[in-house]
């Protein structure tokens, strides 16, 4: 195995799993996990303000989907032994403040925030899909599937946001 070569490179004693590009996968999972965590906090902030309004159920449903996204990335994080971002406490607060702040501007504000965030998340996921396909679509099939599905769901959120933004 890589004992001979790796031992002289005084770095990790860990062996790469099945020859995946660990640094790239690490970064992808860490960023996605942080992103979903932040999105969770944004929706939590919005719910805190607009939870009992007419748009409450819509936000709650989108929030539930983000929770399931976060759960999936947490599982991937453990499976690939990726470390979480050190900025988690910061995203915790910043996300909540952004969500609550935009909700205080009213339903339109909250929806506009959702649209903007989901748009940039979708673009970000698309970049990652491109990167993984360039690397090796076969090797990263499972991860690609997950990211594609999440990208589609974030796109849905974006469209829901537009719908309600236009209405309100």
């Amino acid at each position, binding site marked *: 195995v890589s004992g001979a070569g790796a031992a002289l490179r005084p*770095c990790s*004693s860990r062996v790469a799993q099945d020859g995946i590009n660990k640094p790239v996968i690490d970064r992808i999972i860490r960023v996605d996990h942080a992103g979903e965590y932040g999105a969770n906090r944004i929706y939590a902030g919005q719910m805190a303000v607009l939870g009992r309004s007419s748009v409450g159920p819509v936000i709650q449903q989108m929030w539930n989907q983000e929770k399931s996204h976060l759960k999936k990335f947490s599982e991937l994080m*453990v499976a690939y032994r990726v470390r979480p971002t050190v900025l988690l406490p910061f995203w915790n607060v910043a996300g909540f403040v952004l969500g609550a702040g935009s909700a205080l501007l009213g339903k339109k504000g909250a929806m506009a925030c959702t649209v903007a965030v989901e748009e940039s998340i979708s673009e970000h996921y698309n970049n990652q899909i491109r990167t993984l396909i360039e690397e090796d679509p076969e090797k990263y099939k499972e991860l690609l599937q997950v990211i594609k599905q999440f990208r589609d769901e974030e796109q849905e959120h974006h469209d829901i946001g537009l719908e309600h933004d236009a209405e309100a």
Partner: protein
Amino acid sequence: KMAAAGGLRRAGWRLWRARRAVVRCQQCPPLRALQASAALRAASDEHKKEPWASSSQQHFESPPAGHQPEEKPQGPHPSYTGQGGQESEDYESEEQLQHRILTAALEFVPEHGWTAEAIAEGAKTLGLSVAAAGLFHSDGSELILHFVSECNTKLSELLKKEQKLVQLGEAEKKPIDEFLRDAVEARLRMLIPYIEKWPQALSVLLLPRNIPSSLNLLTSMIDDIWHYAGDQSTDFNWYTRRAVLTAIYNTTELVMMQDSSPGFEDTWRFLENRVADAMTMSNTATQVQSTGEAVVQGLMGAAVTVSNAGTSRAVR
């Protein structure tokens, strides 16, 4: 003339391959060492005792004819038979050669310390010239880093084996504090044969040049221990746990340097206490958090009651 040309081509090929292997290695010895090591291999094949300057000329004059060099070094590094000439067909990479020299040198560390002397002695047992020590820094950095890396690998294998036993149901799953204690003790016990010279090694590991590597080795070892302990945190706990365990490991290591009790029992008792402290700390933190949450709930309840009372009074 033809033989000389062939010899030059082979020597050039070896140098090119050695350079290629080294370029992939992040911790490279200086370029002059490449030529030294190629010549060393030649020296080991042909003449063990002669100074390498003359033996490299010998090499050019008498290569085996019609030999095709292999493209890649063989997988696990080749076993060295110790007889000159039989290994000349075997192209191992620069890294593998250095790895073998350093492994051989470890035996001489208790006597010579982490120095070029130990490396030279190690090289001699492999039948290489003592000039092999020139491949490495004179402060023994590579030797120490190699040793640490080997210990970490041994620890990982040990933990993986234990994990397999637990999965097969042949062993009980240890409680966290016992697991951490045993893992740290197992890792520190690997220092015992070298304990006299270990303080010297610690100071070398702290040289600015070595800090990236030594820090990397330390953090991945701690991460490995937590991984096998079953840590699955994906929040800030990930960092807290590793920081705590790193502190425990480092302080216990320092205590061990000064421990003269039989079988290092003072060190293991110190370790037990630190791990217990860490467990208490985390329990306290959980308790503080739940207390905090309870207090907040109480305040919210009081606020709601007061505002309801106010509203109902207003209605009346």
